[in-house]
């Protein structure tokens, strides 16, 4: 059984080392939860991403809470959430106190110029591994493509796309039976 401190520590790393919010956390979460600890299969990981996205609130915190809950119920959820948000809150408070000095620091600026393309690559790379565990084939590849285009080109809210996909699945299983 997963230890509370392992749950905490995994999400502590995820919260501390991702810049750019929700989806930027996915590669590190996948690595910690699926590859490293084996707490979730790739499919279960995807199911949680879908659920966390369909619910209101902060995506990363929903992911933390779902994983913690699955492993060790309520306290597991608390351990994951606290781990996930602790360092971000500390960073923000420090910055709120010393904002100007940080923002105008030329070294910080240079570091961020290097980080931004890396963040994009880290989100793009898992698309291909995830496609395999979602069982994408030539006959259904239109579904992820349409979803991506709706969000990227038409600016549709991702939560709406997730809810629509759920409805489509529901409809499909009703017709088939």
């Amino acid at each position, binding site marked *: 059984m997963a230890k509370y401190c392992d749950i905490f520590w995994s999400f502590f790393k995820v*919260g501390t*080392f*991702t*810049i*750019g*919010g*929700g*989806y930027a956390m996915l590669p*590190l979460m996948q690595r910690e939860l699926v590859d490293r600890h084996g707490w979730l299969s790739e*499919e279960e990981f995807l*199911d949680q*991403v*879908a659920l966390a*996205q*369909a*619910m*209101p*609130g*902060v995506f990363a915190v*929903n992911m933390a809470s*779902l994983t913690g809950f699955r492993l060790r119920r*309520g306290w597991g*959820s608390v351990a994951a*959430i606290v781990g996930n*948000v602790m*360092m*971000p*809150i500390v*960073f*923000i*408070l420090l910055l*709120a*106190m010393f904002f100007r000095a940080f923002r105008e620091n030329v070294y910080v*600026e*240079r*570091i*961020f*110029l*290097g980080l*931004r*393309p*890396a963040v*994009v*690559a*880290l989100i793009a*790379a*898992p*698309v291909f591994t*995830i496609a395999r565990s*979602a*069982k994408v084939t030539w006959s*259904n590849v239109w579904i992820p493509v*349409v*979803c*991506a*285009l709706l969000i*990227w080109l038409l600016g549709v*809210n991702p939560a709406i796309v997730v809810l629509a996909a759920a409805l489509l699945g529901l409809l499909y299983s*009703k017709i088939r*039976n």
Partner: protein
Amino acid sequence: MIFLELFYTFLLIGLLTFGGGYSMVALIQGEVVTHHGWMSAAEFTDLLAVSQMTPGPVGINTATYAGYTAVLNAGYPQWAAVGGSLLASLAVIILPVALTMLVGGWLLRHKEHPTVATVMRMLRLAIVGLIAAAALGLVSAESFGMPGLNRRFITSVLIFAAVFLLSWRKKASPIALILASGVAGLVIYSF
């Protein structure tokens, strides 16, 4: 009483945000700047810069910063402002977390049901598209610089290609890749 108002406002913001951090930012702006006047529009712009520059979920970062600034601007001392930031962060996650665990627990118990299984299969396909869209949405001049034969753009493309290949093919650690890219930026742009 600013603390009660803060708690209630962020409770609502958490419950009404669908689709992650950036849709929450718009809601926070409406409540905190326009409706309550807890901070100025300029302070809000600072907030956006800060929450994109620091690690962590954007929703938590904006709630923390907004709670801190709102209490400070209301004339309270710094320790009370820290309390305000924790209060706002707690308020913004508590209802969604409860809801997510309820629905998640239910789904876990019924995942063998054929309808639930079909819906989940469809959702997995959609999520592949969602993540692709997230990556595509970040392909911008802000991330890469203006396309052309300039140092910023070429460096960005090289960093992107290296991180992409190391992450996809070699399963390199994301933490190591993030740290290395930061160092690369610091070194390359210092000359």
